[in-house]
């Protein structure tokens, strides 16, 4: 990790730690629980899209798979939720690993179509296997996570629970960026053929990072299931995958802090966009187009651009 990132991460963690003291038991704290979950999901997608340059439109479904496996294990079979969370993450990343081999042979639009297909298949499974998932009407009664006598059933506890995982995810992703594997991923993104000439097994590396992305998405899904205690397929459909994509692009491809910014804005945005009802997806689409046109490196890119400008002018 670069020195500036270390300082930024430390400062960010401190802010997060004290946020509940400032926000108290308010609605905004409740929203911050979801910002934490979405930050994890955005980083998971960013590992693929921002680091390795590989698109996935099936992230929402991997997130859903983690949520459903956790829900089924804990509510139907009485498995300890913590254990269930770990088991889901292993299963979901194993699914991604196996599916990854054929689909990550594909590039560009074809990969987008294949991951879209994966998302649709899982979404249909969530809807149709009613005995397991409760189908379209949802899966109620998922137990909360517990730690000793502490039950994660209120916003403050959930905030710390989710952000514990989100901060770890950010930390690991930041470490990865400036490392042998991080460089290999970015090399694949910039020129796959040159990366291979340099000895990077691009295909295997893409499959591995897809599995890692699925692991994080699954953890986020389990956290969602156990904090909300009710899940339904609608949360894990194509719209949500597009929303995640928007978070990553708005925040900045390859930027971990950008993923947080993107997640924060896109999680808060619906609160502001309520007036548009079902047309919010149109706003997301519009946002995506405008950002690609005017700030291709996202908010993180804008920040570093402004920083460089100030630096030059102060000289």
């Amino acid at each position: 990790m670069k020195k500036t990132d270390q300082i930024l991460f430390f400062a960010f963690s401190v802010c997060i730690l004290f946020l509940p003291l400032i926000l108290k038991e308010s609605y905004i704290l409740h929203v911050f629980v979801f910002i934490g979950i979405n930050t994890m999901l955005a980083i998971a997608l960013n590992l693929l899209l921002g680091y390795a340059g590989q698109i996935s439109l099936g992230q929402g479904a991997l997130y859903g798979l983690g949520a459903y496996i956790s829900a089924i294990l804990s509510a139907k079979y009485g498995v300890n939720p913590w254990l269930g969370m770990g088991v889901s993450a292993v299963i979901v990343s194993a699914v991604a690993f196996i599916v990854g081999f054929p689909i990550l042979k594909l590039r560009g639009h074809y990969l987008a179509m294949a991951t879209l297909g994966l998302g649709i298949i899982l979404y249909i499974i969530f809807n149709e296997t009613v005995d397991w998932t409760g189908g379209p009407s949802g899966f109620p009664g998922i137990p909360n996570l517990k730690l000793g006598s502490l039950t994660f059933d209120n916003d403050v506890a959930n905030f710390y629970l989710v952000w514990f995982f989100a901060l770890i995810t950010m930390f690991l992703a930041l470490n990865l960026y400036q490392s042998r594997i991080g460089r290999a991923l970015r090399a694949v993104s910039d020129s796959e053929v040159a990366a291979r000439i340099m000895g990077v097994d691009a295909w295997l590396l893409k499959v591995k990072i897809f599995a890692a992305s699925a692991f994080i998405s699954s953890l986020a899904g389990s956290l969602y299931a156990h904090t909300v205690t009710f899940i339904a397929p609608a949360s894990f459909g194509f719209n949500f995958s597009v929303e995640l994509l928007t978070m990553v692009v708005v925040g900045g491809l390859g930027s971990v802090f950008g993923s947080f910014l993107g997640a924060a804005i896109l999680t808060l945005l619906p609160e502001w966009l309520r007036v548009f009802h079902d047309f919010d997806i149109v706003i997301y689409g519009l946002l995506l187009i405008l950002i690609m046109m005017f700030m291709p490196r996202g908010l993180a890119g804008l920040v570093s651009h402004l920083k460089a400008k100030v630096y030059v002018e102060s000289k």
Partner: protein
Amino acid sequence: MLKVSNVSKNFGGVAALRGVSLTISKGTIAGIIGPNGAGKTTLFNIISGLYPQDEGEVFLEERNISFLSPEKLVRLGLVRTFQNLELFGRMTVLENVMVGLHTKSSSGLLSCALRLPKQRKEEKRIVEEAWKCLELCGLAEVAEKEAASLPLGQGRLLEVARALATEPKIILMDEPAAGLNTRETTGVADLIRKIRDMGITVVLVEHDMELVMEVCDHISVLNLGQKLAEGSPREIQDNSAVINAYLGED
């Protein structure tokens, strides 16, 4: 060192290479020249494992390397550069060279994410080695620049620096001087000789005849997918078939 035996390649009925055989001896600078469309880059793509050949075999130090993938070949000591720069544009010059050290390091996904002590030690070594390559190629001053922002001359040098970082036995260079001015070309010529003197075999595809004639120990001429001639620079310059291929017959 490198032996190409009877290699043929067709692209949808068009024969790009027709039974080409070459032998490149260890520690030399071997040139491959020929008019546009002669099949030079196709030959490079086949040797470096990017395309499969339709027929024929390639040997590296007696070992059959036909159909091996590029990521395996670099571990055996064969690496190449690209005519149309294939740099990692959004990474710094230093990072580009650090990718070249991928096979000389081993930290995996988890140890990178967790930043284990062993990984940190390795990272330090990678940085040191990368700097050495940058200094050798005269790129130390631009180490922190984004690769995409380099002018062509430095971009071509970075291609070479990155390839050298893999510690190759043999390096295939695809037109390292194309588009460069005289001064830059002289720099490339000096660098090529320096690389040979390090004990690395160099195979050069190049259009700049002056450079080829100046640095190469041995030259092979391709024309229309076939080997037209081979020999020392002097022999090639005097070969009437070569002159005809380049200038056209009367």
